[in-house]
């Protein structure tokens, strides 16, 4: 199944490479979508036209592909997708496109996507899609896509990624997964799902305390803590072979931290030297380097994307707070000063900001702060306990878990705290979501 999926992606990718580019996308970023005031791009996505109206299977394909594109761009959190019932301009099959941009701006669309279904056979699909800037009356790209596998969602993802690229400068978070832990009674295990909540899979079957899943940035491994042996130890799972290797089983506590950007080192919290300290494990050489030296708890290390710094939690000043240090353990600096319980640091892949959870008015909420400890923003405000933030690879979204009474959720929000969308809701305890890197 997985092989087939990989194969499909490969085929699609190959054809995309050789697909004809009429106009290359303008590499211009229109609006700073990270600005606090940014809301969403209003976009109209038309059903695709059938160039060959006679071809029977394409009758469903042309609406299905548009529905798929709407679904994927909606996931990115930065689009307001206009209801197609509000469209004034009809899309006549087979007629050449003459766009009256005023018909689109009057319904509030800033952008417009149109496309044609050129061939839709049993397995062959060729589509052409065109993105327009309605306010400027300008075409942003016109691109042909060929798919030999009949996998509409892969095709839609590719088009959605191009739309994001044209408007934001990067391809968004398509082809990513989220790992998380489901706790049932006293037992927990790791699950993964696609970023649109589809294809949920059980990864571990330890039926014990399992915690802190962390992806390696190269997408090869998932590291985590498990009490499988009866004690907290750290395992490294090869995602291709499914093989699990115990990489840390020192006396006392062995807790999984995070990977270095080159995926060669794994940060750990160990108590083998009689105190909880942070260590870097060289995965190939299996050598350890101790990084912290204090009589307090040092835990939850997160490596910066440029590889130069490590964020971690320490209670050296009396309560758990977020600190930064160099990768050799020097230049320790506290960056959180509000509140007396700040934990779970996660570093934005674009650098600059650290998301974390903090206790405020008896609830845990997600915050983000810059590396200097300035420009603190509270991102969640509702009545739930919101915990375990993890950034998407594009740095534009954050996944987190929340708990309110008996309800437990995994949700994503834009990195400015807007547009929260629930991915999974359950009576079991859903915790510790971790966003994967982009898979090829």
């Amino acid at each position, binding site marked *: 199944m997985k092989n087939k999926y990989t194969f499909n992606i490969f085929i699609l990718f190959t054809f995309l490479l050789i697909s004809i580019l009429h106009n290359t996308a303008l590499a211009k970023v229109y609006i700073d979508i990270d600005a606090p005031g940014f809301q969403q791009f209003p976009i109209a996505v038309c059903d695709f036209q059938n160039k060959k109206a006679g071809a029977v299977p394409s009758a469903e394909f042309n609406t299905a592909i548009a529905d798929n594109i709407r679904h994927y761009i909606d996931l990115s959190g930065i689009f307001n997708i206009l209801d197609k019932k509000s469209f004034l301009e009809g899309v006549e099959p087979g007629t050449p496109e003459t766009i009256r941009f005023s018909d689109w701006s009057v319904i509030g669309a800033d952008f417009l996507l149109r496309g044609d279904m050129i061939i839709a056979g049993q397995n062959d699909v060729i589509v052409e899609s065109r993105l327009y800037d309605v306010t400027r009356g300008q075409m942003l790209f016109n691109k042909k896509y060929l798919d030999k596998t009949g996998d509409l969602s892969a095709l839609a993802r590719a088009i959605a990624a191009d739309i994001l690229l044209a408007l934001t400068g990067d391809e968004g978070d398509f082809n990513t997964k989220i790992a998380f832990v489901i706790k049932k009674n006293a037992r927990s295990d790791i699950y993964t799902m696609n970023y649109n909540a589809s294809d949920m899979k059980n990864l571990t079957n330890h039926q014990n305390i399992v915690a802190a899943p962390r992806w390696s940035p190269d997408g090869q491994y998932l590291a985590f803590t498990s009490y499988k042996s009866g*004690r*907290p130890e750290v395992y490294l799972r090869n995602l291709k072979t499914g093989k699990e290797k115990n990489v840390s089983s020192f006396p006392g506590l062995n807790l999984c931290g995070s990977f270095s950007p080159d995926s060669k080192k794994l940060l750990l919290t160990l*108590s083998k030297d009689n105190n909880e300290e942070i260590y870097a494990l060289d995965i190939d050489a299996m050598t350890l380097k101790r990084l912290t030296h204090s009589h307090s708890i*040092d*835990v939850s290390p997160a490596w910066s994307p440029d590889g130069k710094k490590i964020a971690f939690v320490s209670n050296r000043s009396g309560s*758990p707070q977020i600190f930064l240090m160099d990768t050799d353990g020097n230049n320790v600096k506290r960056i959180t000063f509000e509140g007396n319980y700040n934990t*779970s640091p996660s570093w934005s892949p674009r650098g600059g900001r650290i998301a974390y959870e903090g206790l405020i008015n008896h609830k845990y909420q997600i915050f983000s702060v810059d590396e200097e400890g300035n420009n603190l923003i509270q991102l969640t405000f509702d009545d739930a306990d919101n915990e375990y933030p993890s950034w998407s690879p594009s740095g534009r979204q954050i996944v987190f878990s929340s708990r309110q009474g008996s309800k437990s959720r995994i949700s994503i929000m834009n990195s400015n705290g807007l547009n929260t969308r629930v991915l999974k809701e359950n009576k079991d305890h859903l915790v*510790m979501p971790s966003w994967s890197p982009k898979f090829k």
Partner: protein
Amino acid sequence: MKKHLTLIGLLMVFVFGLTIFSGCAEKKAVVKDEAIQEQKVAPTQTAPVAVKDDEAARRAKEQADREAALKEQADREAALKAQAAKDRAARNAAALNDLNIQNIYFDYDKSSIRPDAREILKANADIFTKNSAAKIVVEGHCDERGTAEYNMALGERRAQETKQYLVNLGINVSRLETISYGEERPANEAHDEAAWAQNRRAQFLLK
């Protein structure tokens, strides 16, 4: 105190008696099984020769019967052994339980040993000294508030501080082992301060 010790002594004698007794019972049961087995098996060896096909079928059946009987016996023995081991473990656990080892409790987000816990640790250390053969596992636990990961570290800190206190009271460090369960193994499942106070604890296990 002395009276208490006598009671413990009596209890141990009783426990030993039980162990020996159950050991005998086990052996007897086995012997009985073998007797049955022999009775079943014996006729097959002296059976007269009959029609060849029947003979082969009969032999196969006998072989199967014999194997089934052996397997049954093995299963019975294994079950008895498992039961005996279980009983022994339960008796050990009960005996250790009767030692009256008490948990100690911690303040919120703290791992320092409270004054009330010092008295308990002294009493526990006496018990550990008297049971010098047993290893001691110190379990650190937290209440459900806060981050699971930080709580695993906090639980370990509580276990370590407790271990150090016991070392200072003269318990040999090589007998002591720590494990943190963070917030994952609450003693009280409720979600209020009373439950949390019971969950912020160090618990002791002799083995």
